[in-house]
């Protein structure tokens, strides 16, 4: 297996059986995949399509019925591979009686880290996931988002080369979702390989380089996201400040060249962008109703700058 190929499956199949060994469901059928170093790979599909089963097979949590899964060239049941990977389960299955520090310290010990490295890593990750103020609180007091963040921190405790994320944005609010996606992109920038599975198409589209679409345990599509989503016979033009006359002229030009205008309208922002913009504005100017970002054009990527509170709008409006 090439150094560049981090994960490889060969005719990987999984059949779930009952107590008597009778076949209950065929969860995965002869899956052939290769995931390359440094890419964000998405496993996409509806519920029950075999995404989570694939992740679990790669982790050695399940044994293949036939075929094989190789991670870093090692069989997926080989514990040694775990030295180089991190895993965030669908729910953050953590010990709720531990606090954030104890949780990360415990997982760091499982990597046989020296006390100094352990302490350093725990501090850095707690800050990175924004739980510095809650580091001494037991996880049972954490909100869902905080639990996901500490879950992500435990997955990164060993600075892994490969990170497997099972439904990473599941249960997160839009802000948490955005943070998670930003984190995935940061990991990619650091040269790490990420495999994520999700049924939230927008999330996958935003962060993945390549995707595999599974349905009923079968691989239906595999390729680069931009290639898969490109509609070859449609041309999109985006412009700003055009008058009605100009727009009519453009329509005429398209008509003269035997083209068909499918849509020409003011674009709308996404609900996610709207929500994020409102939250950021609210954080920057507490007590004020946020302006509609759609009226000002696309929402900015970074939080808006704080403005003086000498606003004409009253706090009760918020």
């Amino acid at each position, binding site marked *: 297996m090439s150094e560049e190929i981090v994960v490889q499956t060969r005719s990987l199949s999984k059949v*779930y059986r009952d107590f008597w*060994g009778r076949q209950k469901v065929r969860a995965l059928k002869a899956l052939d995949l290769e995931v390359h170093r440094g890419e964000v790979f998405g496993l996409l599909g509806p519920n029950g399509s075999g995404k989570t089963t694939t992740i*679990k097979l790669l*982790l*050695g*949590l*399940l*044994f293949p019925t*036939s075929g094989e899964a190789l991670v870093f060239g090692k069989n997926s*049941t*080989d*514990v*040694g591979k*775990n*030295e180089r*990977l991190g*895993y965030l*389960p669908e*729910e953050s*299955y*953590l*010990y709720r*009686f*531990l606090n954030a520090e*104890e949780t990360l310290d*415990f*997982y760091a*010990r*499982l*990597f*046989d880290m020296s006390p100094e490295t352990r302490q350093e890593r725990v501090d850095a990750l707690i800050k990175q996931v924004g739980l510095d103020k809650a580091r001494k609180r037991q996880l049972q007091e954490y909100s869902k988002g905080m639990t996901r963040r500490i879950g992500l921190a*435990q997955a990164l405790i*060993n600075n892994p080369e490969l990170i497997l994320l099972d439904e990473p944005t599941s249960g997160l609010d839009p802000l948490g979702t955005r943070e998670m996606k930003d984190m995935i992109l940061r990991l990619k920038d650091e040269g790490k390989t990420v495999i994520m599975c999700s049924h939230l198409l927008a999330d996958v589209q935003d962060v993945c380089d390549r995707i595999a679409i599974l349905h009923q345990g079968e691989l239906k599509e595999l390729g680069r996201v931009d290639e898969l989503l490109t509609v070859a016979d449609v041309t999109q033009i985006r412009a700003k400040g055009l008058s009605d006359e100009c727009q009519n002229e453009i329509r005429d030009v398209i008509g003269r060249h035997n083209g068909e205008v499918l849509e020409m309208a003011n674009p709308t922002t996404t609900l996610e962008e709207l929500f994020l913009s409102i939250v950021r504005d609210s954080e920057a100017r507490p007590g004020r109703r946020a302006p509609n970002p759609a009226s000002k054009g696309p929402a900015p990527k970074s939080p808006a700058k704080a403005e003086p509170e000498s606003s004409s709008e009253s706090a009760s409006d918020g």
Partner: protein
Amino acid sequence: MVLEQDILPYLQWFLGGADSLGALPRFLLIVLGIGLLGLVGGYVMAAARHGVLRGGDITYRTVSAGFRELFEMSPRRIWALARLAMKEAWRRRVWVALAIFVIILMFAGWFLKTDHQDPAKLYISFVLTATTYLVLGIALLLSAFSLPGDFKSKTIYTIVTKPVRSGEIVLGRILGFTLIGTFLLVTMAVCSYVFVTRSLGHTHVVERSSVKLLPGGEGASEGQTSLESYHRHFVHLDADHRGEAESNHGHFHYVEPRGEDFRVLPAEGFMRARVPRWGSLAYLDRQGVSKERGISVGSEWTYRSFIEGSSQAAAIWTFDNIAPPKPGENSSDSDEEEGLPIGLIVRVFRTHKGVIGKPITGAIQVRNPDTGLSSDLIPFGALDAKVDERIISRKLTSTEGAKIDLYDDIVSNGRLQIVVQCLEKGQYFGFAKPDCYLRLPDGSPVLNFIKVYLSIWVQMVIVIAIGVAASTLLSGPVALLLTVSFILLGFFREFFVGVATGTEYGGGPIESLVRLVTQQNVMSPLKAGGVEPAIQGVDGVLKFLMQSLAQVLPDFSSFSTVDFAAYGYDVPADRVFQDLTTCLAYIVGLAVIGYFLLRTREVAK
């Protein structure tokens, strides 16, 4: 004290002797047997699922990975998992066991009275038994539900996706629960010790009016103490008013002068650690003919056999390696000091009532095993089951009236015989081998207490190891049931083995069931309408399985050393090391079984 089986020297027990298989070869044979069984069973299952060749490949990979991972285990990871197990146990409020124990002790004070003939025995038995059951219960609950809890909450996902070996998970759990159990046990031991010493501690005053000078005693006097805790003591005092309150209710007091009066010091000797050295026992019947056993008085428990009073029947103990005290070994040169200290326990069986409370008269003789030269009878009064500690004087008189020396004339090649007879007609003395012994200097009672707690600790660790190993495969309640079954069978191992080997009446399990349902007694031949051979055939198979299981069944009843402490005997070091070695063998065996069960289990299924 009851000691039904000899305690072999450690090395002989470990390596075996000419006529017995040692613990080590036995362990290796069992490991080999279970290993082969596991290998074949594993292959058959893998082959059934994946085909003959792939099944073989999977089996080979599993076994070879097992050996490889054995050397990849990290103490740091094991310790991390152990710490987690401890935190989890604490979160599950194991300290409640301590609260329960303290409450039990508080209420026990109401019910355990000090009017018992040997109150220390009652108190020590009680605290040790309560500790044993509580600690085993806690060990059972912690170990059986921990891993299944992780599987249920799926927290195990975040463990097994780290470079953690299955063996580390099993060992970490065993270590963690053992440490938390040890903490509970140590706390209970301290509470128990304080409870026993505080409950039994008392003092008396010497009744001035009872003190009388002994004629010709050069100022020595005797008297008695006041009545406290349902008893009083006779007091022997020297001219300086120093002395001792005679042993009663299992203890004694020192007395010292306080001005013109006396001061009785706190009770001593409640907790003792007598160190006995046992010999071999033979019997003479009423005609004086040598026998292996005495007669039965109808007791179902055949541990002791009896000798008849006022006949030639006798119990004869032979001791070896007896050496005279070296010059200067004793501070005093009196005959008493140079004599042979012995302990004697007599079970008295009365065929007529006599005077209740009055001892039955018996006699002791010491005899040269080679020449047959015997001392004259040394009479004694036997109270049922009471430990009679005495010193055989060095200067003795032979049966012919000649002066003889214990070590020069009676001890021959380091050997000596002690002959005990009952002198009252119609009364019987019952003995077993440990009932007569040579007394070595007492050991430390506190150390002995610790050794007894160590035996409880051994039982606790074995229960934890069984629970953890079972929980790698089974759900919590099922693992609990399996572990409870092991404990119960372990406590009744002798009966279980008796059924398996056919020495118990009533046949095997199926035959017993048929007898139970059809109300047939256990002595008459089975009547089952012609299907007796089929029943006995099935029983044959079950008995074979039971015998196989008996090989690995922990003998919990033999681990207990509660009686040693209760009766005031030192737990021999050989016994302690044997128990610790057995415990280690169970940990190793069960950890390996747990490893393979966890390794071959689909965690996310």
